[in-house]
């Protein structure tokens, strides 16, 4: 997947503002899959996530003329998807939050070749820990590490200051590190690191 760079995103935004449908399609093709995965973290249902992301793009098109070209289009879309996802959870009044690691399919935590066992296990654990983080920390960390958003963009998406984003991410890493230490002492496992 060749994601556009910042410069290309800016150009796409300008073209979108001028009602360029090809630019719209390009943005859709670049960001649909990551946005569905992002929404899935909240909604836990792929079909719901897909609907939400499609709605977000429809909103994007309807509001294309009022988009601020100075602002990151990526952050703009993540923000819409996040709001729609949170609304969805609220409307459905899910008891557990969408980031519950208990929802992760168990078989994904094992089941790999002998060779890559250790590395895979390490990464799966890391993944599990990221999911177990407090919601805001997990959110900020994921947006930073997996969605490739910079701090300003994440701040925009989460509606907080970029300083807060910074704190969330640092706290996230501290927690992950702590969970790792805990894990090592519990299992005397030496594979990690």
């Amino acid at each position, binding site marked *: *997947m060749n*994601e556009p*760079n*910042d410069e290309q995103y800016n150009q796409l935004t300008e073209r979108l503002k001028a*009602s360029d*449908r090809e630019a719209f*399609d390009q943005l*859709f*093709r670049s960001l*649909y*899959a990551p946005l*569905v*995965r992002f929404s*899935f973290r909240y909604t836990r249902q*792929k079909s719901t*996530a*897909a609907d939400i*992301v*499609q709605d977000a*793009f*429809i909103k994007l*098109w309807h509001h294309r003329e009022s988009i601020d070209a100075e602002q990151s289009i990526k952050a703009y879309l993540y923000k819409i998807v996040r709001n729609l996802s949170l609304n969805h959870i609220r409307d459905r009044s899910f008891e557990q939050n969408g980031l519950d690691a208990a929802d992760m399919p168990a078989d994904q935590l094992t089941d790999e070749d002998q060779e890559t066992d250790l590395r895979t296990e*390490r*990464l799966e654990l*890391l*993944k599990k820990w*990221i999911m177990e983080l407090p919601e805001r920390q997990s959110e900020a*960390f*994921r947006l*930073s*590490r*997996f969605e*490739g958003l*910079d*701090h*300003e963009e994440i701040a925009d998406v989460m509606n907080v200051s970029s300083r807060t984003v*910074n704190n969330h*991410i*640092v706290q996230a*890493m*501290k927690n*992950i*590190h702590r969970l*790792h230490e805990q894990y090592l002492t519990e299992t005397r496992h030496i594979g990690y*690191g």
Partner: protein
Amino acid sequence: MAEQSWNNDKKNRDLDRLFDNVSESERKNLKRVWDDSSEIDLNEPPVSKAETEDALRDVHAKLGFEDKPVNSQNTDRNNGLRYYLAAAIFLIIAGAAFLLTDKKVSVPKGELAAIELPDGSTVNLNSGSEISYSRLFNYTNRDLHLNGEAYFEVEPGNHPFHVYANGSVVQVTSTKFNVRSWLDDPGSQTTVSVISGSVRFFAEGSPQEAVSLKEGSESRWISGMIRPADPDPVRIDNILAWKQRNLAFVNTPLEIIFRELERKYNTSIEITDREIGRTVMTTFYSDPEDVESVLNDITTVKGLTFSRTTNGYRVSK
């Protein structure tokens, strides 16, 4: 996946800032978490290219975009491509030829018609009226041409809605209005009456000389005028009488009334003296059954007589 977008200054600055308030010893631990996490593939749930394309088509449909034929990727490379190309070229040519012809709706005399346009706007057409518009109506523009009388209820859309009526133009975004513009009426006058919302009304080619019409007002334009007349208040009942098959005329010359009757009853009415045509009359008929009762009424009031001809009627003094 995070790696490639990583090589930019903004994000390195973020990374530096992350460790600003972190002690030296802890920094090493955190850096390791940071680096390790770049290897995680959070590709859950997987979203395929095909799914993305399907979703994009859905979104196009919801937004009312026209879709190009789908490209088949990687499949049927050898056998299918030639066929697809030929088919595509044929479709493009046939499609273009089709798209270039306008869509026409004409209403036979004696009938009324109501149609829905591709953008969801509706048009009621009076007897003998004709409209035409591009097959790309709503995609590239919302322009239509009218000869006759029509009542429009225009939905909001991506393009301004234009009615071209024998040399004049009505421009709206979303509103309800009536346009009367008969090429064969004396003076070929166009009358625009606004029921709700507002419109801009101007001579074709002179949009800067527009008259702005608000709810309950009307304006006229006669071929040759630079700018349509200033707005007058309008009696909406009279203007839309035709929609209920009623007839309503206010100080209207008989010449015009007879044209209306001709279209409404698909008949022919001739006058023996030009002066008869210039006589004005104010009258209202609720869904009159036949043309003779109306003619009888008009001629009685105006001291005229009428007789049958082979294809219609003759009115004389």
